[in-house]
């Protein structure tokens, strides 16, 4: 079993608790996932409190998407367990999961009905307002820009008003302006109490928006804590203080042989 000493947060190591001490709305302990002989996850634990933004970062093949799909209940873990989970967990896959030949409103209406929302039209209106897509409600989803598609994708994930939202690479393929608007939207969700766990390649996004950062590499959790803690750990090891977060992250992976 690989070491897990890199985690500097005692709270994060204690599965079932958020590193910030709040009661977690979602927590998983020692998750293991195997694809044949390959171990995609090796004893990964994670927790998120209401309103918390948790960034899962790591190189390609680190196990980020696998972790989110297990938390979303899409596939079972081969070991460990999800110890705390709300009834509804919102999940937004990396590729927009919507029907191109339906309009924005029709996509929302369809999933609202499938989610058995009591007031379908009210929910659709609310989501159109929340995602600022009201003026595109009648447009086919296939005609939307990448950013708008992603906003619709997230809106569909939020239809059931889940206390936890899982986002897989939400800003991939978006231009900087679209990305900014997207994070503004996600930040608003967190501010309203929704726990958001997002996987990203973008280290700046993890530093800027993540209150907690989980570093994965080769299926192992190497770190869980705040971005500042990660920088501090790297500084202590290398003897250098300061520097940017991306450099600290790369150095952190290098120190651990990744």
């Amino acid at each position, binding site marked *: 079993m690989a070491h897990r000493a890199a985690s500097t947060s005692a709270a994060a190591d204690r599965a079932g608790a958020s590193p910030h001490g709040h009661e977690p709305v979602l927590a998983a302990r020692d998750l293991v996932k195997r694809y044949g002989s390959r171990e995609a996850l090796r004893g990964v634990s994670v927790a998120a409190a209401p309103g918390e933004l948790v960034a899962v970062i790591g190189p390609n093949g680190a196990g980020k998407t696998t972790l989110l*799909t297990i938390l*979303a*209940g*899409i*596939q079972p873990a081969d070991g460990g367990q999800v110890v705390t989970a709300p009834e509804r967990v919102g*999940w937004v*896959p990396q*590729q*927009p*999961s*919507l*029907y*191109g*030949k*339906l309009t924005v409103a*029709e996509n929302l209406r*369809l*999933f609202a*009905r*499938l*989610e058995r929302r009591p007031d379908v039209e009210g929910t659709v209106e609310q989501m159109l307002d929340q995602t600022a897509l009201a003026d595109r409600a009648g447009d086919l989803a296939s005609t939307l820009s990448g950013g708008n598609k992603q906003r619709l994708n997230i809106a*569909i994930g939020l239809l059931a008003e889940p206390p936890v939202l899982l986002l897989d690479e939400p800003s991939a393929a978006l231009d900087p302006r679209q990305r900014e608007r997207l994070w503004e939207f996600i930040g608003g969700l967190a501010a309203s109490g929704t726990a958001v766990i997002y996987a990203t390649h973008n280290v700046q996004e993890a530093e800027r928006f993540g209150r907690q950062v989980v570093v994965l590499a080769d299926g192992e959790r190497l770190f869980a804590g705040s971005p500042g803690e990660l920088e501090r750990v790297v500084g202590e090891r290398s003897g250098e203080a300061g520097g940017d977060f991306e450099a600290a992250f790369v150095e952190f992976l290098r120190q651990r042989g990744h």
Partner: protein
Amino acid sequence: MRWLLAKDLRILRRSPFLVALLVLYPIIIAALVGFAVTSGPGKPRVAILNLVPPAANTISLGGEKVNVAKQAQPLYDSVEPIRVHSRAEALQRVRDGDVLGALIIPPDITQNLQAATLGGTKPARLQFLFNAEDPAKQSFVENTLKARVQDANTALAKKFTRVAADYIRLLSTGGTFSIIGSSFNVLGLQRTEAILQQVSRSVPKGSAAAKQLAQVIQFATLARQNLGLANGVLSAVGTPIRIDTTIVKGGKTPLGAFAAAVAVAVTLMFVTLLLAAGALALEREENAFLRLVRGLVSQTGLLVEKVGLATICSAAVGLILLVGLSFFVALPWSRFGLWVIAVAAGALAFGALGVAMGALAREVRAASLLAFMASLPIAVLGLVPSGAVSSGLYDLVRVVSAAFPFKATLDALKAALSQTGGMSGPLLHLILLAVVFTAVARLALRRFAY
């Protein structure tokens, strides 16, 4: 599930090319099959070069003039004759493709026929010239010609037989015989026997003359009796083999109804397989599958919805096709309810096969290709008749056909359209296949997500 069905129908409505295809396909197929069934094969154009002088068209047979051209009429009735005036012209028309072939009647044909009636051994021959660009055409031309020459031979043989039978009757019972304008009275064996019987009474019994007369009377009696049998023998020579048909298996499905059943079964297969396989694979390509099966819809529910979508659409297409075909071929409208049941059951089984293909292929293009590639062999195997291949191979074909819905759909449609055969067997078979293929699709969905 109904919301998903409504969504798929809405998406289908917004795919104008696909909708046009679904509407036009049955109409075109109905028209093609209808014309093919109702407008049977046309007469082949054949150049005819008759080199026999008009005066030499008859032969003399037993004092009767037989017009050979008239007896050969069946040969002309089955073709569209194009009269030509020389061998070169006949050849040119064949080379140009203007006619299927050229029939050349040599000038000595009636002489040879006349000689044959007098015991000659040289047969009367016709010449036929034709192109053989491909084996199918060659086979068609040869078979057509042989059949028509056989018809003409049969007509002539009947004529010969009738004349020969008249001769025999004359020898047996006696009568008047005319030749070259003169009439002869033929005594006949029957009257010869009576005269001899009368004479024998005046001859002393036990004398040498009485014994000789008795021998002659016995010969006349035997000859008369045996010649009486000759008429039957001669008529048998004219048509030595006759066919009595008895159906051992299957009903007497009219050709039109059978063609309609095949057209609808093929249409159901293509439309349902492509729709079901494509619609399921599309859920994955739109990345909606995982979102849907996270508690919004069960995986089995999703499969049932796709099967339902394909069944509804293709059954509608199949029924439109049947209605279209009813303008060309006689279909029993009184059994419309059974049409619906047969079409729906076939569509259901094909829908299940389609989702199995979609789940296995996972991508729309691959699923469509798989559905298309599988359709043709499934249909061909379902149409192989018994006796067309060896018994072992036919058993294998039956087993493979039974594993797919085409044959059972065809049987159900034949039963619904022609009032022959039961429907319950094919319907149960189709329902069983629907359950099995849905189960296969459910298993295949395990690898659908990633």
